[in-house]
């Protein structure tokens, strides 16, 4: 019962968003039913609809979890975007340096490799690199807040710019195949590739890019749940988020929790790099993120900062993301921007409802800046 009620509130926000969105569609001169059936209906087609939905959901699960963990500690991590860029670059770099000889875009055999590691070592190493790099990038604003009291929202936003620019710089000047017109790194070693789920699931073609990172995302949901609610570390993080003064009273080092939560958050955001680099592009591809880090904030908000909620919200947003293409193609007037409108409306309704549900108060959090 308790859990059903938790679900009810976001559900109302989503329904309200669709109702208001429907008015927009009507105003443009299309049928909301037609538009919504294009938007959502295609997501459930097997195998393409479901496969792509899960592929699109994977990064959003990671970033949603990232934002949720930080939020549970009373922090607003706007920096998942930067953390996932740094992580993607790090995992690509490791996979190039230890991936052996590869075939570049011109069909030439090239090697950026120091040594060739087998997949059993390289894949875990590359995964570790993504998590570590994301965690490092996330811990920076955590440290700045803990040490100097500077607000994490400002610092994470600034670090986003730095992350994107740094990755572009290294791609352009150090890791691009000379002559390649696209801003992307050289390919990563094949032993670093992780399998598409099609390889294991009958009826799911291997061309659909949903890959093992999705399984990792599910595991991450479970681990985040255990971490937050079943370990003493999670207790300390949540206590800090719920009431820093009471946490201090309970002998908890608030500063330490801030750095830890931001590191865990960054590490989770960094896992997006596994999906994008090891599972899909097989290289660092400049500007690969479709605002995953920012959409993650909406995912966490709608998912009430709970792993199960994040999973469901990520799937919903993934459905919308892909449905937008069909709306574009198969309705007369409505464009895929309807997705943006719906996302914005969902957030508005969740935020409006938060007034009545104390625990979700983002705006209160923004006001509170002292350690």
């Amino acid at each position: 019962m308790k859990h059903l009620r938790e679900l009810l509130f976001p559900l109302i926000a989503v329904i309200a968003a669709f109702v208001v969105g429907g008015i927009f569609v009507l105003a443009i001169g299309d049928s909301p039913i037609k538009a919504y059936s294009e938007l959502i209906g295609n997501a459930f087609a097997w195998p393409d609809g479901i496969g792509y939905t899960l592929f699109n959901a994977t990064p959003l699960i990671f970033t949603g979890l990232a934002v949720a963990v930080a939020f549970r500690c009373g922090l607003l991590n706007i920096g998942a975007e930067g953390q996932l860029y740094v992580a993607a670059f790090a995992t690509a770099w490791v996979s190039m340096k230890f991936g052996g000889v590869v075939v570049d875009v011109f069909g030439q055999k090239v090697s950026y490799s120091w040594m060739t590691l087998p997949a059993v070592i390289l894949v875990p190493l590359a995964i570790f690199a993504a998590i570590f790099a994301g965690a490092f990038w996330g811990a920076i604003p955590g440290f700045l807040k803990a040490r100097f009291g500077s607000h994490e929202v400002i610092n994470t936003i600034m670090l986003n710019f730095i992350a994107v620019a740094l990755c572009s710089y290294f791609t352009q000047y150090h890791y691009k195949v000379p002559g390649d017109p696209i801003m992307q790194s050289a390919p990563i070693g094949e032993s670093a590739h992780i399998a598409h789920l099609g390889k294991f699931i009958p009826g799911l073609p291997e061309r659909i890019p949903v890959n093992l990172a999705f399984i990792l995302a599910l595991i991450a949901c479970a681990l985040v749940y255990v971490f937050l609610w079943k370990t003493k570390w999670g207790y300390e993080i949540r206590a800090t988020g719920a009431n820093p003064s009471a946490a201090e009273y309970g002998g908890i080092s608030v500063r330490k929790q801030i750095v830890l939560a931001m590191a865990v958050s960054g590490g989770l955001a960094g896992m997006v790099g596994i999906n994008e680099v090891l599972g899909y592009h097989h290289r660092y591809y400049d500007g690969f993120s479709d605002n995953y880090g920012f959409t993650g904030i909406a995912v966490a908000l709608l998912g009430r900062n709970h792993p199960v909620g994040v999973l469901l919200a990520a799937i919903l947003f993934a459905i919308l993301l892909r449905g937008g293409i069909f709306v574009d193609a198969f309705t007369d007037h409505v464009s895929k921007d309807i997705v943006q409108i719906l996302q914005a409306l969902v957030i508005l309704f969740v935020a409006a409802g938060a007034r009545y549900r104390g625990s979700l108060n983002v705006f209160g959090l923004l006001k509170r800046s002292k350690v």
Partner: protein
Amino acid sequence: MLELRNITKRFGDVLANDHVNIKVKPGTIHSIVGENGAGKSTAMRIAYGFYTPDSGEILVDGEVREIRTPHDAIALGIGMVHQHFMLVEPMTVAENIVLGAEPGTTAALDLNKAASEIRALSDEFKLAVDPHATIETLSVGQQQRVELLKALYRHARILILDEPTAVLTPQEVEEFFAILRRMREQGKTVVIITHKLSEVLAISDEVTVMRDGRVVGELKTSDTNAAELARLMVGRDVLLRVEKPEAKAGETVLRVQNMVVAVADGTRRVNDVSFEVRAGEIVGVAGVEGNGQTELIESLAGLTAQSRVSGKVDFAGRDITNMSARDRKELGIAHVPEDRHRRGLLLDFDLAENSILGIHYRQPAVTGLGGILLDEKGIERRARQVIKDFDVRPPNPDLPARALSGGNQQKLIIGREFELNPKLLLVSQPTRGVDIGAIEFIHRKLVALRDAGCAVLLVSAELEEVTALADRLLVIYHGQIVGEVDPKQTSNEEIGLLMTGGKKQ
């Protein structure tokens, strides 16, 4: 004058006011007493237009009136002074008073006119408030008088005062009562919401007693006494005095030497304080709030994130001056903080999770994986133990702490700390905002802990509480201990004098 007739108000599942009838006669001082949650504030907020009742009617001067907003109430001559003052600190008295009712034309503010009116009012009631003073330079008692002026300036004939004496020293209370009596002489009607029975008897003409949302008694003050009022409030006989045997003080547990606590701007909140607390005794600290009690207790508990501590603190012969809060707790120092919402509880966490705050990292809260995983069974056992021993209601470990009444929240905290079997208990405002029934219970537990050989350092803003509980009483003023008195020998006047910086005779 003011009459509530059959007022009913429901908040969710809670029936806050159940067919409440209150009749306030003109030119009287009328007290409304009751425990927390009895519905006395709700009733008065309805009269002031903060809430609209579900049913029932409000009569002013014998006529049924619709009061939907405080604006309506003010228009009818009803003013209210809240427990927490609503003043803009950097602005002057006059500016604060006219706020929302600015004189002059639409564009120009005529502050001089306001100031002279305020001065006239202040003289009429002998309030001695300077309209041009800034609020932050005023004492708490003066700020309260500014709040009174605010209502008078708006031509209030009926003044509703919510817990007006909570922030005042004994001397200020006397002055305040004199002001109220003058107001009564001038024909004003005063309604006081309070839970302090001695004040009810001292000042009011009539008293309405509320319990569980209902009016359970309407009495003339001259016909009643404290015991009867307490019985009506609680619904059973209450022991108003603390009964305790003579203290058997043992070895020194806490020795504080020349302790100084400075905050970020360099101000010394605790200034060169030295004292001792021995096993088996309760040492009380009396003082007007804000004279360093908070910083003293928190520094001793190791909560020094916002301050710097120097001097020397010994606990059972060990130097703990620079020890962390966690290590101190491990040594046997428990702490009941003054503000249960800010410090003592995680309001959104359930009772079980709250019952392990501070020991969440060790047995019995953790199990498996080298003590990383929380032991839910152990936590629940602990919670049930606290709930049972300290009569926390409702006795459900899965409820969020927010759902409990103030008294039960306080019992949860006290239970959690007592369960540690401390050698030293630092306890601040143990019964603030707690009902009489629970106060009695908490006082008995404190005495029992003392008799079990624990050293207790007690801070309370309730002078009666510290004098009743303490075996020795220290008085703190401006961060310094200005005197030690024997609580059995002293008078409120003597302590009050020390509390405000006067010298001991």
